[in-house]
Structures are given as C-alpha cells and as structure tokens.
C-alpha cells in the first residue's frame, strides 16, 4: 500500500465520520496490535525458513557448474576425514579418503567426524519409498471407504458414531500410531523394522484424515446433482462416477496431498517401525528375493535429521550436514504442501455451484 493512498483513505474517513473520538483511537490502537501480532507470527516462520534456506543452501548449492552439490545429493552418509597433506587442507568422505590414501605411502593423520561426510541420497530414496507405499495403502482404503460412507450407507446413529470416531482418530498424536505400529507390525506380526511396517503405520495415521476430508468433499455436493442423474435412470455407480467424483476430486486431491505432506514430515511413527540410523545399501540393492524389499529398514530424511542433530557430537562439520538435510527435507515437504494450496485455490475457482 502506497503512503499516498493511506492519506487519501484517512482523509476520507475523517470527512465521512467527522472528528476522531476516543473509541476510534482505541480501535486504531487495537487493530495495530492485531496487525503487529499477525506479522510477528509471519516473521517468526520466515526466520526459520530463511535460517534453514540460507545455511542449508550453502551445503546444497555450489557456485560453479553444476551448481548443485552432487555428492551431497547422490552419496550415502559417511564419516568425514579432515586432514592436512602437503600443506593443503582436505575434507573427504570415507570412500574418497580410502582411494586417495592408496596412492600415498606415508601415514596421514586425520580427524574424523561421524555422519558429516558423503550425502543423503539413501534418506531421500527411503522417504520417497515410504511416502509412496503409505499413500497407496491409505488412498485405496480411504477414498473407497469415503465413497461408501457418503454415497451408500444409510444415515443413522451408527453412521454418526463411525463418523465421529474417525474424526476423533484424526487428532490422535502420531507417536501413538508409532507405538501401535511398533507393537503390532514390528513385534506381534514379526515384520521387524521394515518398509512394510512403516507403510502400514503411516497409512493408518493418515487414513482418518483422508476418509473424513474425502467424505466431506463428497457430501458438500448438492443432493440435486445426484437426483438429476437418478431421474435420468442412471444407476448408483454411474451417478457416483459422473456426478459425484468429478466434483469431489479437488477435495480428495487436496486431502491426499495434505496426507502426503504429513506422511513425509512425520518422524515419530517411523522411528521404531521403519527407520534405520545408518544403512550401507540402498533399499533396492543386495536383495535375494524381490519381496525382501518390503522387509528391510530404510533411512529416512526426518529420522536422519533427528539422528544428526541429537545423537552425535556437534561441530561445524555436522552442522553443515544438518542444515543441508533440513533444507532438502523442508524443500520436499514445502513443495508438496504448496502444490496442495495452489491446487485448492485453482480448483475452487473452477467448480462453483
């Protein structure tokens, strides 16, 4: 807002409402306070974004071609060796250091920092796998259940109770799902710490959200649209396919993207069900049978952040790793969330009744 506009507006207000009274002054004061509070919140969030983007960007981006830190994005976490050789200072990840040392006879004294070298590719891959599997399970169960609850089930006390309990489950803390997944899938089913245990735990965590949001968007469609279809002799399924689902799609999509962001962002449910602190192989390497893929633990970005920021001694080298990981993670989750917000705004404009 330009200052001249404010002046015009204020003068207009003066001419319209006459002289300023005490209550007007109070009003302006209180509104200023509200504005201050609101912008304070925005500022706080911005501080976090800026801090992580600025410090993480140093790890992820490079000033020369290809502008990205390829090693960081494609390697696995390793010990960092810091040493001086022939007057130059080197920082090398473990594997690089080994090959470097082979050509040299004299012993090299190094300082080592756990988790500070290499990259985070296994974590990215693990997170993507976890999200994909969990969302397939959750979407299948969730959307189909929502269709039943909204279109087929008869309204009544039971339906209300079911709805209420699903809504309540949506607010249950994620750690409770974590402890459930640990007890049920990891121990009782004997799946151990594995991808599949993580999938089911995460899927169950978002299931209530997806069911209630999808059902909500289907119920928001006016009954008249269904009646019109029935009046033309269409069956129930045809009605759902042509007159309900297309209009409910924006809502279903948004809810599922929110689900993706939640699944990708949560740490507590996978801590005991799917995540390893460190694993040498990528998930698809070294499999004896194809289904071994499901029964192995993976590294995951959120758990990696937890490990490097709480479980190992802190120094400047680990700090780089932490910020780099946090930046990549924030970027992935934020991209998902942003696309859901944009999609919703777009879709809202498209469908109106």
């Amino acid at each position, binding site marked *: 807002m330009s200052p001249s506009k404010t002046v015009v507006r204020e003068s207009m207000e003066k001419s319209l409402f006459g002289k300023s009274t005490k209550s007007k002054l109070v009003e302006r004061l209180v509104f200023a306070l*509200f504005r201050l509070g609101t912008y304070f919140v925005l500022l706080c969030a911005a501080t976090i974004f800026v801090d992580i983007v600025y410090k993480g960007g140093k790890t992820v981006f490079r000033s020369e071609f290809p502008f990205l830190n390829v090693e960081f994005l494609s390697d696995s976490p390793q010990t960092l060796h810091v040493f001086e050789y022939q007057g130059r200072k080197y920082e090398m990840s473990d594997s690089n250091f080994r090959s470097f040392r082979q050509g040299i006879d004299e012993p090299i004294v190094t300082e080592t920092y756990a988790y500070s070298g290499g990259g985070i590719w296994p974590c990215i891959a693990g997170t993507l796998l976890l999200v994909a599997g969990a969302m397939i399970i959750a979407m299948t169960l969730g959307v*189909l*259940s929502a269709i039943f609850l909204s279109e087929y089930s008869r309204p009544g006390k039971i339906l209300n109770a079911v709805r209420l309990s699903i809504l309540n489950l949506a607010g249950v*803390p994620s750690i409770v799902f974590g402890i459930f997944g640990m*007890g049920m899938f990891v121990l009782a089913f004997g799946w151990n710490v594995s991808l599949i245990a993580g999938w089911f735990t995460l899927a169950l965590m978002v299931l209530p959200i997806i069911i209630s949001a999808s059902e909500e968007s289907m119920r928001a469609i006016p009954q008249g649209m269904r009646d019109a279809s029935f009046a033309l002799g269409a069956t*129930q399924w045809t009605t759902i396919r042509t007159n309900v689902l297309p209009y409910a799609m924006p809502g279903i999509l948004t809810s599922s993207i929110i689900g993706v962001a939640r699944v990708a962002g949560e740490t507590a449910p996978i*801590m005991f069900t799917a995540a390893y602190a460190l694993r040498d192989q990528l998930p698809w390497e070294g499999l004896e049978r194809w289904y071994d893929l499901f029964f192995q633990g993976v590294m995951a970005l959120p758990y990696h952040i*937890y490990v490097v920021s709480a479980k190992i001694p802190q120094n400047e080298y680990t700090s780089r790793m932490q910020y780099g990981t946090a930046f990549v993670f*924030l970027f992935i989750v934020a991209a998902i969330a942003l696309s859901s917000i944009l999609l919703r705004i777009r879709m809202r404009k498209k469908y109106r009744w």
Partner: protein
Amino acid sequence: MDKRSSKTRYQLASNRKSFLGLTKESALKGLFGGNAFVSIVVLGLITLFLFKEGAGFFGQYRDSLLLYRQSGLEYVELMRGQQNALSALTRYLNSIRSRQIEKLAEEGYDFQESRAIMEESEDFFYDFEDLAVPLREHVIEANEILSAARDSYQEMQNLSEHRESLLKSGRQDEADALEIREIDFALFFDIVKSRESEYIKINENLIRGIEGILPSTPDFGDAELQAKTERFKELAEMFIEEVSKFEENVLAWERSRPVPISEAFTSFIFGKKWVTNSSIQDWYGLIPLMSGSLLVAMVAMFFAVPLGVGAAIYVNQVARSLERDLIKPYIEFISAIPSVVIGFFGIAVFGTLIREVSGWESLAWIDFFPISERLNAFTAGGLLALMAIPTIFTLAEDALNNVPLSYKEASMAMGSTRLQTIVRIIVPTALSGIISAVLLGFGRVIGETMVVLLCAGNRIEIPRFAEGIGVVFEPVHTMTGIIAQELGEVVHGSMHYRALFMVGLVLFLISLLINYFAQKIVMKFQISRG
C-alpha cells in the same frame, strides 16, 4: 449384502450382466463397503491393541511392588529417606564451606592464609559429617542383605521358568538336575528387623550429636555466611523433628501388608517418580511426565492463543483482501513445516538465542535470569506455539467466517465502530468455534513429539512450580518424549514396555477427550441463524 435389494422393483435391471449372482452394482457396493469395513475395523483395532498391550502393565507392576515390599527393600528405602534428608543437610553445610572459600579468595587471602582461617572451623564440619556415618552404614548393611535375597529370588524364578520350558520339551533329566531353592524373605527380613533396636539407638545418638554440636557452629564474622549458618541451624532443627517421623514410619512398616491392584494403579497415575533400570526398584509414575507435558503446553498456549486468535480476527475482519489472500495460505503453509525441522531449529538457533538473551545486562533484574539450560520447557513451548498457531488460526478463522454478515451489518447500522462490532457481536457469536479451535490446538501441542524430544531438555523431574514463573526455564520430560526416547530399548512384553504403552494410552485418551469436547462445544453453542 442382500442381492435382491439392489434390483429395482420392476425388474428393470434384470437384463444386466451378473457374475456369481452379483451384478456390477452390488459388487461395487460390496467393494466400497468392504473397504469401509476394513478401515473402521483397523482403526478400532488400534484402540483395542493399545488397551491389550497396556493392560498387562498393572498386574506386572503390582507383582513388582509386592516383591519390593515382601523382600523388605521398601523398609530399607524408608530408612534411606532419612539418610537422604541428612545428606541434604550435609550438602547445605558444604555449600557454606565452599562459599567461605570463594569469599576468602575474593578478599585476596592466599592459600596458606585461607587455610589457617578455615582450620578454625574445620572441626565442626568434620564432626557433623561423622554424625551421618552410623546411619549410612546401617542402611547399606540392611540393603545388602535384602538385595541379596531379592536377587537370588529372581534367579530362582528364572531357573524355574527354565525348568518349565525343559519339562515342556520333555527333557526330564535336565529339569531334575536344576536345583531350585525356595527363598524365604521372612528369614532375611528378620535379620534386618532384629537390628531395629540398633537403628533406634543410632537415631538417639544422631539427635544428641546434632543437638550437641549445633551451639558450637563457627562464627564466620560475615553477614552472608552468618545468614547461611542461621538457616542451617533451622534446617538442622527441622531435621531433628523429622527424625521421629521417619522412625515412626520405619517401625510401623509391615512386611505382610498386601499390595492391592489399586495401589499399582494409583502409583502409576499419581506416582511422582519415573525411574527405570534401577538396582533397587523401578518406578513408573506419570506425574513428572504429565506435569512436564502440561508445562510445555501451557507455555505454548500462552503464546499461541492470543497470536492465533488475534491473527484470525485480523485476517477475517480487519485485513484488506490482498493481505488476506497472502496471509491465509502463508499461515497454512507454516503448518506444513515438519516438526523435526522445527525441533532442529530449536537446538541449533532458538535455544542458544534464549540463553543469550537471558544473559543480557538489561534483563538482570529478573531473578531467574540468566538461565542455565539452553533446552528447557520454554524453548520447546515457544516452538510448539508456532505449530499450534496454524491450527488455531485456521479453525478460528472458519468460525469467524461463519458468522452471518447480517449480524455485522445490523451492528454497524446501529452506529458502532468496527472494533465494537468485533468485540461485542462477532467474537461472542463465533466463541464456540474459537474455543474448540483453541482446544484442538492444545491437542496438537500435547501430542507433538519431535520438538519436545529435541528441545525440552529431557530431565525426568517434576518441575518446581513453587518457584513461580521461573519454572518455565527448567528442563522437563514429556509423555510423548519418554515414549520416543525409551521405546527403542525395551524388551518386548517387559514391564517397562507395557508402561510405555500405558503412557501411549493416556495420550490417546487425552486426545480423544479434547476432540470430543471440541465437537461438543461447537454443537452445543451453535448459533441459530434465522
């Protein structure tokens, strides 16, 4: 599924293809219904499973408490309570000593000189420390006898379990070869009990000793130290009074008093200690964790409620439309920041920042500043506030949005200002929605794990609420944090494992309760819009 009901009354649908007697329509309905059924059953299963895994806890805990009592270790613990009180007294005395050393150094005495000065009062300190020795030795001896009994009892338990499994697999000879003795706790306990007269004598000597020594407290000739010694005298006299109470408890203690299941229950819900892997007795008390969770949540709500509701009012009522279109998605976007990233920010930046700010000279007048711990309830609470604000904002804004425009118009038409309209008309009308928004925000804060695990300091102790507002800068542990921290290392089916499930169950019930009330409030106070 009733196949017939899916056909219409006039057989219009009879020409449809059917497979195994199912038309496409009913098959689809079955598919959807089946999915819904599975979802609901699975979600219900979570509740059942939590109950099932947690339920065994009270039985195990009761057995453990029973063993604790029958082995007589509880008796020793009573005496140890007295010993601890005495050590606290000694510690206080030592703090006077070290303060004296500091003072001497400040006044510029060198080592030899200050030693000479301290030697004057040395006897008093040594004498007092000597007073504690007999009691300590008595407790240690009693503890040794009884723990030995308890340990061999547990060994025998393991052996008999081993024998059971041998018998099951038909290895009779090996099973018979195991030598299993019955451990009679009474026998061991009687040894300790028979020395009760010694204990009484020790106490008599202790009281006489302290009373004898108190008048000869050294005079340091310094106001601060003098005040401290006066305080010490008071504490010592209080201790003397307490001795009889300790003694009474010890004498009244009975080994045969039963442990009802309700005691296991109350010592979980109202227990003040959470101690695991202890050599004497494990305690699973919820209060330290619960109070930690509540303290963090209170800090978070203190910031989140005014800011969240204020922002909702601002965006909905005051802001121009461009501002609104930018702020709303932005705040929703905040809710997508993963909690572990916020927790990491707390460790890396926010905690250090708070400690630095607390060290500012201009803030020195606040009596609990500067703070010692970087990670404390305030750090975690401040960050959680940022996570609760989007929840509160979104829901409260919805509630404000639902207030019919005519209300606002009517109020404005009466000549009230915008602020008056907001305060008197719009907020009261939307109040139920705002309250439920606040409740749901609270639920989010109580259930959040990573931020508290990383930033709350993880010290298992009840925060000292008596110290006033400074309590928020103490490190705490929370219900969610304890699960995340300890679940990784427990044995499946052990008491500890079940205790963590019980904590999870409590969290589950709290969140259900919050959700339930949030919905109730919305329904009950819903405005009728004529």
